[in-house]
C-alpha cells in the first residue's frame, strides 16, 4: 500500500502530462470523432461517434498506464533505485505495488474523462458499467505490468521510449479501439487475427458493453470472453513483471 500511495503521489507531479492528455482527449472527441462519424458508411454513421469516444477512453487508459515505465527510468537516472532497494519491502511487494499503483493512477486520470464520456454517450445499465470498470482496472494493472517488464528488460531510456512509441502505434491501430472488427477483417485477415487477441480490443469491447454500445463486438460471448482475455493479460504481465523486476532490478546496467 505504501508503494501504491507513493506512485499515485508521484503521478500528480506530472501536471504537463495530465494537461496534454486532456487536450488530446478533447481534440479526439470534438474534432476527429465528430467529423469522422460523418465520413463513414451509412450503416456505421449512426453509432460511430459513440463507438469512437469509448475507444478513445481505452486508448487514454492504455497510454496513462504505460507511464509507470518512464518513472522507473527517472528513478534509475537519479539513483532512487538504491534507496528503494534499501527499504524493508520485498522485491515482489515492490513490483506488485508499482503495478497496482500504475493502474490506479491511470484510472484517476481517466476517471473524469469517463464521466464526460458517459455524459456524451449516456449510460444504459449501471451494473454493466461497474463490471466493465472492474475489468478495465485489470487492463490498467496489466498494461502497467507490461510497461515495467519492458522497462527493466531494456534498461535504456531511449530504447524504451522508441519501443513504447512503436508498440503504442501498433497495439492501438491493430485493435478495435478506433474501428469495428468487421471492417478490420475486410481490410486484412492478418490485422483481424492480431486484433482478435489484442488486450486493447478486449478492453474496448468491455467498456462499450458497459456503456450499452452493443453493436460490433469482437469477442463472444460478451462479457465473459473479454473478461477472460483481460484476466489472462493481467496475470501474464503481473507474473512476468514480478519475475523480471526481481531478477533484473539489481546489478545496474541502466542507460
Amino acid at each position, binding site marked *: 500500500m505504501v508503494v501504491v500511495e507513493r506512485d499515485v503521489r508521484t503521478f500528480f507531479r506530472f*501536471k*504537463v502530462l495530465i*494537461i*496534454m492528455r486532456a*487536450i*488530446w482527449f478533447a*481534440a*479526439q472527441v470534438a*474534432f*476527429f470523432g*465528430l*467529423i*469522422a462519424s*460523418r*465520413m*463513414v*458508411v*451509412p450503416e*456505421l*454513421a449512426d453509432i460511430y461517434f459513440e463507438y469512437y469516444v469509448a475507444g478513445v477512453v481505452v486508448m487514454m487508459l492504455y497510454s496513462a498506464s504505460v507511464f509507470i515505465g518512464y518513472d522507473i527510468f527517472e528513478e534509475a537516472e537519479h539513483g532512487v533505485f538504491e534507496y528503494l532497494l534499501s527499504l524493508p519491502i520485498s522485491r515482489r511487494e515492490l513490483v506488485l505495488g508499482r503495478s497496482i499503483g500504475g493502474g490506479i493512477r491511470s484510472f484517476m486520470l481517466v476517471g473524469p474523462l469517463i464521466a464526460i464520456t458517459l455524459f456524451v454517450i449516456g449510460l444504459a445499465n449501471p451494473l454493466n458499467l461497474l463490471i466493465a470498470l472492474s475489468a478495465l482496472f485489470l487492463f490498467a494493472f496489466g498494461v502497467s505490468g507490461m510497461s515495467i517488464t519492458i522497462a527493466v528488460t531494456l534498461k535504456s531510456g*531511449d*530504447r524504451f*521510449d*522508441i519501443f513504447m*512509441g*512503436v508498440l503504442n*502505434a*501498433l497495439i492501438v*491501430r*491493430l485493435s478495435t479501439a*478506433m*474501428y469495428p472488427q468487421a*471492417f*478490420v477483417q*475486410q*481490410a*486484412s485477415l492478418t*490485422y483481424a487475427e492480431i486484433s482478435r487477441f489484442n488486450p486493447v480490443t478486449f478492453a474496448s469491447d468491455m467498456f462499450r458493453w458497459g456503456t450499452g454500445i452493443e453493436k460490433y463486438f469482437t469477442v463472444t460471448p460478451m462479457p465473459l470472453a473479454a473478461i477472460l482475455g483481460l484476466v489472462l493479460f493481467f496475470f501474464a504481465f503481473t507474473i512476468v513483471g514480478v519475475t523480471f523486476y526481481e531478477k533484473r532490478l539489481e546489478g545496474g546496467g541502466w542507460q
Partner: protein
Amino acid sequence: MKAVLHVIEHDFRNFLRYKWWLAGLISMNLADLLIMAVVYNQMVNPQIINLKSYLNFFAPGVTVLGLFASAFMIGREINMEVRRQIHHYLLSLPITRFELALGRLLAGGLRGMMYMSPLLLTTFIFVGFPSLLQLLAILAALFLLATGISGLSIVTAVSTTSFEKFVTARGLVYYVLFFCSSIFYPLSLIQTLGKEGVMPQAIVVLAEINPLSSGADLIRSFLLGNPPFALEMVRNLIAFFIVFTITATFGYMKIVERA
C-alpha cells in the same frame, strides 16, 4: 552565407543523432498509413471524400503530418539551449545574430524536408507520380510549409520559459493544427458541418487557413485532381511562411541576446 551553411550543418548533425527517435516517428507514420488508413478505406463513404480510396486521400496527409513533426523538432532543441544557456556559446561564434537565426530556421525546415522525403515517395507509389513541373511545385510548397513550421516551433520555444510550458504549448499547437485541418478528412466536410451549425465557424475558418490543410490539399490537387487547385492554397502557405519566418528570426535574435 557560409556561416548560415555552418549552422545548418550543425543542426543536421544534431538531427541525425536522434536516429532512434526518427525510426520511431517513421514507424508511427507508416502504421497510420498501412494500418489505420487501410481499415478506414473500408469504412469511409467514397461519396464524402469524392475519391474511391481513403488510402489515396490520407497518403498526402500523412506526408504533411511527418513533415510537421520533424520540422517542429528544432523548437525543442532551441528551448533546451535557452534553458541551459548554450546560446552564450553560440553568441561567441564569429557569426552574426541574423545568420545564426536564419541558419536555425532553415535547418529546421530542411530537416523536415529530409524526413518527409520517404513519406512523399510512399505517397507517389500509392497515388501515382506527378509530372516534373508538379513535383517542383509540390517540393516548393512543402519547403514553404516546413520553414514556416520551423519558425512556428522557434516562436513557441522562445516564448516559453520552461520545458513543461513548451511541451504543453507544443501539444496544443499539434492537436489544434492536426485535427482542425484536412489531413484526416476533406475540408468540404468541415465546411458542411460549419453550415449545419455542428462545427463553430471559427473552427471552419481555422481549418481553411490552416497551412497543413493547404499543404495536404495542394499535393492532392496535383496527384488526385481533388480538391481542385486553388490559389488560396499557395496564398496560405506564403502567408504562413512570411509571418513565422520573420517572427521566428527576430524572436530568436532577441532571446539569444537576453542576459
